[in-house]
């Protein structure tokens, strides 16, 4: 049987298209693949493959500074995610539910941290905490408060944007039906709005979590002398030499971030299917 002619949308059957795709994947993923591969390399240097080993993972686990930095990062991520999700959701509901003077300006200003260069945010945060004299010598976990506040301020707009987008698809008759059946404003929020926002909340929270976990620039500027987070610690290790231990630690972070992102995408995807079913 003769092959069918190439249709206008048969991108994968065009040679030049395949080559472009291949080049893109190589440039995007080759460094990451190399990083992961060499975390198992039985050599002190990241140049020649000398056989498989897990000893750099062991070494990373034994490195107390690294573990401390990792715990710090997770603590900051959890705390800032919780606050950013609540704050971002409230902002989204506020913008969706109410009309008030200056709403457009407020919406724009709220989204500024998304577009402001991180370095500017970092410097601004540093100047802010220095100016108000935020104590930098508190006991753990309060020593992380400055970083947490900084993380909340750049991640809550992402939550607000995601939740806002979800709310656009909300059928207001659902809220009206609940009210008509006797629900108060609060009961409508709890019984109808929150379950509806659910997938958006989870997606927004995961976004905030990954943003916080791997943030370097803003954290670098706001961390005190005694608080080190995982990305900052990795950076300081790299300054001496790029050992497979750094590779191992980075691999752990990549796996964590990818897992969370996939979960977020999957949740959104599932919701879209459900919404389509309900509408159809």
């Amino acid at each position, binding site marked *: 049987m003769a092959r069918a002619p190439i249709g206008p949308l048969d991108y994968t059957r065009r040679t030049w298209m395949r080559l472009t795709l291949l080049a893109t994947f190589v440039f995007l993923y080759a460094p990451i693949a190399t990083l992961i591969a060499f975390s198992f390399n039985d050599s002190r240097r990241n140049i020649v493959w000398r056989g498989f080993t897990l000893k750099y993972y062991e070494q990373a686990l034994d490195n107390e500074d690294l573990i401390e930095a990792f715990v710090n990062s997770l603590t900051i991520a959890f705390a800032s995610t919780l606050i950013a999700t609540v704050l971002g959701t409230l902002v989204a509901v506020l913008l969706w539910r109410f009309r008030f003077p200056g709403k457009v300006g407020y919406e724009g200003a709220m989204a500024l941290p998304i577009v402001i260069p991180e370095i500017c945010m970092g410097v601004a945060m540093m100047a802010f905490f220095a100016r108000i004299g935020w104590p930098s010598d508190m006991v753990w976990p309060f020593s992380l408060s400055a970083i947490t506040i900084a993380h909340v301020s750049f991640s809550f707009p992402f939550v607000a944007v995601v939740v806002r987008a979800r709310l656009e698809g909300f059928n207001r*008759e659902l809220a009206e*039906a609940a*009210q008509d*059946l*006797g629900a108060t404003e609060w*009961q409508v929020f709890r*019984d109808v709005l929150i379950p*509806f926002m659910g997938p958006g909340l989870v997606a927004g929270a995961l976004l905030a979590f990954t943003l916080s976990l791997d943030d370097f620039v803003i954290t670098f500027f706001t961390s005190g002398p005694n608080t080190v987070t995982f990305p900052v610690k990795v950076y300081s290790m790299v300054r001496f030499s790029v050992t497979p231990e750094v590779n191992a630690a980075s691999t752990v972070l990549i796996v964590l971030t990818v897992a969370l992102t996939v979960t977020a995408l999957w949740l959104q995807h599932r919701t879209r299917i459900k919404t389509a079913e*309900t509408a159809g």
Partner: protein
Amino acid sequence: MSTEDPIIEIRGLTKRYGSLAAVDAVDLDIRRGEFFALLGPSGCGKTTLLRMIAGLEMPTGGTIRLEGNDVSAVPVNKRPVNMVFQSYAVFPHMSVLDNVGYGLRIAGVTREETRHRAEEALALVKLAGYGARRPDQLSGGQRQRVALARALVKQPKVLLLDEPLSALDAKLREQMRLELVNLQDSVGITFVIVTHDQSEALSMADRIAVMDAGQVRQVAPPAELYEFPANRFVADFIGSVNLIEGQVESCDAGIVTLSCPDLPAPVVIRQQVTYATGTTAWLALRPEKIDITHEPDGDGTSNLAHGVVEEITYLGETSVYHVRVAPDVPLIKVSSANLDRVTRRRFTWGDNVHLSWTSECGVVLDR
């Protein structure tokens, strides 16, 4: 059935959006136990009126009394009325049973009683056994029944329905009309339905309020609305009608005589009205009440016209003949049953025909 005792009394009810009055000084009584329809073209204010009764919109002026108590300022969640929404608004994250029981649950009714009453309500709308399903596993018609059960389970004094059948396909819509009427009979609750579909209103309602531009144009039972419309808007909106302009020549002893410049003979209609001589008035004549013949018919002195068939609309059981009786006036529509197969049509394009009607057909309207 309906008694004269009104359950809802609406007085001077007004809703303004800026300078636009969506509902404009409406007075309306809805009787206990009746199936009442608010009918009108889109944008006439019928849904706004319904939402004000529910408490979802706050009136700009006027009062709503429910069983004699002014509820105009009572918030939506405290009013003893419930609503079936156009989109059904079934909560997508709750099972059918949880949906139906929601109103009872937040009112603090015990778990067992909520379950029991929700199941009863589901049985009432013929969805017994569907309690564990999720809304996305139901068809549109079933979702609507869930919305009905959910509203009825609270035993409201009045059930409000906002275009409940508009999202269903034609066959299901007909079936649901009948079911809604039977349901209303069995629960005995006053139903107020909003619709833009006149056949829906005519077939279901005990009484209909026809609305236009925020005002109620007429309130009457279906047959009265059709046979004795109060004005040209109602005559034209309900069914099909010929409106022929003329001057009142005389009006006494229940006989109105109208002279129409477009008709060769005066119009004589039996009607209990008092119009002054010389008033401009319109004869409203339904197409099916006109006789169409090849030869002159009747006494030849009144209630007749003749002209040429210009258009024919074939509708299956009937055909509508559009007859030109004078240049530059609207064609007169005459509907005639297709008793024979259409191949043996009695009239065809270009035929000269005579039209006649009796003094019992049609009404003379002065507005």
